[in-house]
């Protein structure tokens, strides 16, 4: 408890110091950032998902789930805002527990949580927020290598969702640069699918790899994960500088993050013919750089993230890069009903700069880093405000494995939305997406907004 208080105090002190150092530069004139009011809104989403096949991990082929999300915000003074977003989940699959949880550290999704609880101060040029919140960094549209502040819930992998984290953020909005410092006192790992979930990784590849090295086939036992111990240096830090007018027509972003790998690595321990595997979370530094600009009617963006693992026993050092472009066609004459077609195309690559030490007892978990040499694409076709269609795909050029989604959305009113989608996965059975080729699915979604 004392340690936790220390961590939170440290985060608050650092952020407050940062805020006040720049606050001195801010004018006290009426900024226009006042008169915050109380607002209340939300959505109720009900989704049916049907799978074409059974999975070796899970027999459920029909999933019905509901998510109720309520956004409530209230002004506590002219410049102080409190935002709360309670979220309630219910499903017939058992992915969501019946419990209430706040910190998102659980292995399963809670039936109820506070997705967001944030107290924010808005100065003329400063912003300060504390609470459970999520962030988005990077310039990528479909994938951002530098976007690592929040862990991800991968229980329904194609619909992965960021997990909010208790954190403190300070931001200064300058004329040429904006800067942001984030302090996260508590580590939250990615929530990966359990062994009875159809999106879990198969262990046969792992068994084969280990057998080849050991010369025999061991029994594999997964031990409880080992989170970074609760020491005072558990905190994670992120700092970002963004520019929007340094050079006309260009946006730049520089970032630094020091934290723990949210995905983790597997630690191997052989004990009398049984291989015990424990997920552990190596600490790393990551330096990021990104840009976006326009050239005629094209938007062009790119980023590079240099990932440096603290201890080379644990994991590799690598650089992930992304380059992409967006283009929109409007009022397509050939096809009169189409209002807009927006095409986004990105390419993601990875270079390993330093490998694990040769006798490292650590292995990759199999999740993450799937887009090492991949094309990402998305086409949005808007027929009207009421009707739209989208197609998205990830295609790994190394193994020719892929995922693809087709989705049609109809919005008869501002408060009601219907959607239908189909998703396909394919490729060699030992590839990232190919492993889930049995998980092709279709879904119907009804969302009420209030």
């Amino acid at each position, binding site marked *: 408890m004392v340690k936790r208080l220390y961590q939170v105090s440290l985060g608050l002190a650092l952020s407050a110091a940062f805020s006040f150092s720049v606050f001195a530069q801010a*004018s006290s*004139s*009426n*900024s*226009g*950032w*006042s*008169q*915050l*009011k109380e*607002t209340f*809104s*939300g*959505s109720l989403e009900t989704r049916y998902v049907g799978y074409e096949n059974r999975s070796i991990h899970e027999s459920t082929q029909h999933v019905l789930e509901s998510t109720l999300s309520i956004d409530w*915000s209230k002004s506590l003074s002219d410049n102080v*805002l409190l*935002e709360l977003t309670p979220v309630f989940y219910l499903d017939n699959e058992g992915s969501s527990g019946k419990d209430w949880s706040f910190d998102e550290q659980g292995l399963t999704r809670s039936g109820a949580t506070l997705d967001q609880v944030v107290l924010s101060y*808005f100065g*003329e*040029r400063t*912003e300060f927020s504390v609470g459970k919140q*999520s*962030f*988005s960094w*990077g310039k990528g549209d479909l994938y951002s290598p530098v976007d690592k502040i929040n862990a991800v819930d991968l229980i329904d992998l194609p619909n992965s969702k960021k997990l909010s984290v208790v954190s403190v953020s300070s*931001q200064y*909005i*300058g*004329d040429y640069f*904006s800067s942001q410092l984030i302090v996260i006192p508590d580590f939250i790992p990615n929530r990966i699918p359990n062994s009875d979930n159809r999106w879990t990784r198969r262990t046969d590849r792992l068994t084969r790899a280990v057998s080849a090295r050991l010369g025999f086939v061991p029994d594999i036992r997964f031990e409880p994960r080992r989170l970074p111990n609760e020491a005072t240096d558990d905190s994670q830090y992120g700092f970002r500088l*963004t520019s*929007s*007018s340094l050079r*006309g*027509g260009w*946006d730049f972003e520089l970032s630094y993050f020091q934290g723990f790998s949210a995905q983790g690595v597997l630690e191997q321990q052989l004990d009398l013919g049984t291989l015990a595997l424990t997920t552990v979370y190596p600490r790393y530094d990551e330096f990021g750089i990104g840009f*976006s*600009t*326009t050239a*005629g*009617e*094209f*938007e062009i*963006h790119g980023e590079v993230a240099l990932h440096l693992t603290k201890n080379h026993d644990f994991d590799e050092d690598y650089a992930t890069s992304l380059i992409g472009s*967006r*283009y*929109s066609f*409007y*009022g397509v004459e050939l096809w009169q009903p189409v*209002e*807009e077609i927006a095409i986004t195309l990105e390419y993601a690559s990875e270079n390993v700069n330093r490998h694990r030490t040769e006798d490292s007892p650590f292995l990759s978990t199999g999740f993450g880093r799937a887009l090492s040499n991949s094309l990402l694409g998305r086409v949005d076709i808007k027929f*009207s*405000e009421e009707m739209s269609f989208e197609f998205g795909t990830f295609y790994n050029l190394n193994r020719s494995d892929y995922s693809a989604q087709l989705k049609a959305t109809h*919005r008869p*009113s*501002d*408060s009601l*939305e219907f959607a239908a989608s189909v998703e396909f996965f394919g490729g060699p059975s030992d590839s990232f997406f190919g492993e889930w080729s049995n998980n092709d699915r279709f879904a119907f979604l009804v969302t009420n*907004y*209030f």
Partner: protein
Amino acid sequence: MLTKIILALSIFAFSPVASAEITGLSIMQEQKQRHDVPQEFSQKKMTLESAKGKVKHRRMINYTRSLENQGNKTLLKFLEPTTIHNVGLLTWEQADPKEDDQWLYLPASKKIKRISGGGKSNSFMGTDFSFEDMRPENLQTHEYEILGEEDIDGLKYWLVQALPTTRKEKKASGYSKRIFWVRQDIYFTVKVEFYDRKKRLSKIGLYTDLEEVADGVWRSNVVSMENIKRKTRTSLITNQRDLVTPLSDAVFGTQALKRPPLKN
């Protein structure tokens, strides 16, 4: 009495419009000079009527700043409905031939995206207004010609035709020409006809419920745009306006796009 007449004649003689020949450009310049203010905040309600009579509502706020020797900066934020709450659009106009800077903030992704200004002629968030309709008139990229005068309900109007002149404007604009009805007594546009690239009448904009919001500065509280081809109509009703409270530079910074709508 004589003094008053002499004074009135002197003012008339030295006014910039009266002293020179009235042209299409001088009318548009005078209009800009009279009604442009350094900054403005407004809150608007938008009503979208479909061809089948279906009605949708939006609520939004708008911050504008005019900078000398620079283009305007505009921040627009949606308040309602829930599906687009806090969606923001920031525009920094650039002098020709530079492309305008434009950023869009979509709360669902929490990301600020730079967007191409190429879509100037496109529908603004599904309404009958296009992005170019939402911007102040650019006098450098058009030529203006007086087509004639009209008397309506005892008030005199100039009919001014605007044609795009620069290559960039011709390419980017969705209009081959526009005709403005400008009220002569207050130099204020009350009606605009928009002609598409094929020179067909495509939209009619009406500016009604006029109000003098500051000394000699007029605004229309109700703007309606009728799309002739689609048979749809969008109305913009201004229910709050502030021309006085200073707006800081930070309001028009990209990171400010993420902030929740504040004056709601």
